[in-house]
């Protein structure tokens, strides 16, 4: 494409967002004239969703949840790092202020971030972020190395990464203290599969995980 064509194309596809948005807004108003007035009054989501930035997994659409129902954080490979102020602010706000009942960490098979972390290559600026995934591999080295099939090993790392991030969430003071007082939030680990569009529950046992980590990471005392 000549550069002028590119500029025109960009403008058109960008305008599409606004047209689509107006269509969506009109549709919601037709269904419920009060929809946006109610929405505007505030949010009380039951869920915090921590997912991958991947464009193929818009949390609301794949769970059938509407605007106002799920608080969302998305980053590369759905990581929850102890020193990342970005995700820690989200968890803090969702637990302490919005008082969400469930926290869902959702990974997905075919994750480009996980794949990049398994690639023996200098990824520049991405190195420190992807390093967290390499650390998950090292924690589960024996299990992963025993899987002969490469794509199966990669799928398993996606799952183990989700479980590890669930553990990281449970390690936070916000979650431990709220759970001790209120009995929520409960942390869940899921993986989205492109084969069938379904979410696989990794059956993370919140209670047990909490007990296990509290031997070392107990932060319930204010």
């Amino acid at each position, binding site marked *: 494409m000549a550069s002028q064509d590119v500029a025109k194309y960009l403008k058109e596809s960008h305008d599409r967002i606004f047209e689509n948005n107006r269509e969506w807004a009109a549709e919601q*108003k037709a269904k419920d004239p009060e929809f946006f007035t109610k929405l505007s009054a505030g949010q009380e989501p039951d869920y915090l969703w921590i997912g991958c930035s991947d464009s193929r997994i*818009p949390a609301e659409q794949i769970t059938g949840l509407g605007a106002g129902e799920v608080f969302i954080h998305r980053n590369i490979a759905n990581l929850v790092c102890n020193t990342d102020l970005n995700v820690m*602010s989200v968890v803090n706000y969702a637990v302490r202020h919005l008082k969400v009942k469930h926290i869902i960490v959702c990974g997905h098979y075919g994750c480009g971030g996980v794949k990049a972390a398994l690639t023996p290559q200098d990824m520049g600026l991405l190195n420190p972020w992807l390093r967290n995934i390499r650390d998950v591999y090292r924690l589960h080295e024996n299990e992963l190395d025993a899987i002969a099939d490469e794509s199966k090993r990669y799928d398993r790392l996606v799952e183990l990464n989700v479980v590890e991030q669930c553990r990281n969430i449970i390690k936070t003071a916000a979650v431990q203290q709220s759970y001790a007082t209120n009995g929520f939030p409960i942390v869940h680990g899921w993986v989205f599969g492109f084969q069938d569009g379904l979410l696989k529950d990794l059956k993370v046992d919140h209670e047990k995980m909490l007990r296990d980590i509290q031997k070392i990471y107990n932060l319930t005392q204010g």
Partner: protein
Amino acid sequence: MGLSLDALERVVAGNKIYARKATEQDPQFFKTLATGQSPEILWIGCADSRVPETTVCNCQPGDIFVHRNIANCLHADDLSASSVVEYATTHLKVKRIVVCGHTKCGGANAALGDADLGPTLNTWLLPLRELRRKHKGELESLADDDAKAVRLAELNVQQSLDVLRKHPTVSKAINERGLTLHGMIFDIAAGELRVLDQAKKGNGLWTAPQ
């Protein structure tokens, strides 16, 4: 503990319905998705549940790469957001980056107040409070709290665009392949996206000055 699982069951059931409907409409849908992603847009938005990007843009899975955090803040030293920007710009080669703030933003509201939000949120919102300090006169001249919060959200979007422009990969992509940056505000009460600066608008599109 007596926590009802209803909320969770709803999501699980919702996902089953979604998967069935999507396959009914297009039996190849998930197979095609599984082959990879090539989104044109990176969306940096607020974690607020009322601004689901793909839904409000009436887009499809695969259209928008997403980072959402408290009050759609971009800090140059934030590794999470920088990694998203780097991956989207270098590897996915997105054509546009949208920073979208919104009305009634809890983060903007909190930054306008003086309450102690605890060490984590105090630190995260520090740049927003800094913006508030810089634009004290203008913000105080505004009639009500909602208007103040919208103005602070706008200033925050502009600041995020500034951070983006200084990101080495982004500035390279702007010069070499015409990547464009866009600021928007989602008006929750209207359900509509608004371009940040109507005065510079062309074709419903606001492009940050380079």
